[in-house]
């Protein structure tokens, strides 16, 4: 039986869907069977990031309503055999979801995959609540910026009160990804340090992703940035995926610029 991870953020536009696509592929490249599911009903996007938009026949709502089987609806990734994708409905309203249907679907996915990664809609409304309801763990994606961090804290609060695992007396594991870090700005004191963000949110860090123009280039082409060997964001997602698969990988300090490293070195020889 697999593990279900909800990827959430509170605020939109912080890189949630990009994270889901890259972590899904990264986990699959580590040899695990992985399903990524777009829970953003009405605003389907994960298909574009994965480059699978032309292959969608059945969507998540059709599976939940019994109009298609899960097997029929799951789309195989073009790059890794271990990865499958389930699309969100584009035409329907997110109010079609209900707990019973979601629970049944999540269970079926869990029975068939090692990792099930759910892409939550932004915000903290019903669509979000359904995404976290039956998750074993959550990955919270933030940008080093005040509105993203504040919204993430609200989302974490709801996660802690609405998750079925918590209601059953358990705990949902929570991990933070800090996305779009600009090292120069952190060094000059114009961007929040990851330590400060961890202090405020008080959860465990699973990875830091530097700002990288390669991410847009990757989504333009529908090829997740993890496939780009030269991309620093892609490398970061590789490290995070390996951590999710239980490998011990040191946290790379993406907040240090080359020049600040040089200053540190120069300091030693003073």
């Amino acid at each position, binding site marked *: 039986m697999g593990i279900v991870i909800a990827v959430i953020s509170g605020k939109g536009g912080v890189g949630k869907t990009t994270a889901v696509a890259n972590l899904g592929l990264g986990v699959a490249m580590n040899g695990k069977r992985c399903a990524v599911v777009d829970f953003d009903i009405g605003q389907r996007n994960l298909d574009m990031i994965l480059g699978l938009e032309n292959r969608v026949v059945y969507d998540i709502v059709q599976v939940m309503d019994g109009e298609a089987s899960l097997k029929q609806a799951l789309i195989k990734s073009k790059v890794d055999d271990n990865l499958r994708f389930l699309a969100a409905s584009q035409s329907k309203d997110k109010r079609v979801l209900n707990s019973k249907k979601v629970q049944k679907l999540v269970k079926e996915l869990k029975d068939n995959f090692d990792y099930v990664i759910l892409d939550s809609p932004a915000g903290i409304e019903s669509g979000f609540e359904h995404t976290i309801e039956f998750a074993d763990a959550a990955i919270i994606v933030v940008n080093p910026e005040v509105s993203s961090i504040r919204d993430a804290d609200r989302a974490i609060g709801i996660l802690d009160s609405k998750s079925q695992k918590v209601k059953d007396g358990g705990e949902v594991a929570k991990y933070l990804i800090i996305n779009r870090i600009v090292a120069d700005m952190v060094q*000059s004191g114009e*961007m*929040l340090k990851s330590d400060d963000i961890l202090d405020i949110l008080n959860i465990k860090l699973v990875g830091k992703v530097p700002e990288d123009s390669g991410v847009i280039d990757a989504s333009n082409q529908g090829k997740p940035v993890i496939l780009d060997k030269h991309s620093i964001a892609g490398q970061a997602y590789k490290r995070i995926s390996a951590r999710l698969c239980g490998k011990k990988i040191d946290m790379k300090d993406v907040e240090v610029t080359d020049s600040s490293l040089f200053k540190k070195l120069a300091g030693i020889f003073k």
Partner: protein
Amino acid sequence: MFDFWRKRKSASVAKDRLSIAIMSDRGCKDIYPFMDNLKKEIVEVVRKYVGVRGIEIKKEIDGSFEAISIDVFLEKDR
């Protein structure tokens, strides 16, 4: 030109503003980490004198003014 040095770095401004905003978003109960211990100790002290049915501690913020309000509920037939 020395204004640059006097000005506080914006990241530390962000940290302070965020900490305050998030604290008030989270509501009263998790603001003080010592709240549970405080409750226990107050109940212990009051119990020396009179029966206690329950206790409620609230953090109250009124402008720049911050206070803890403590309600101790006593047993009826004492």
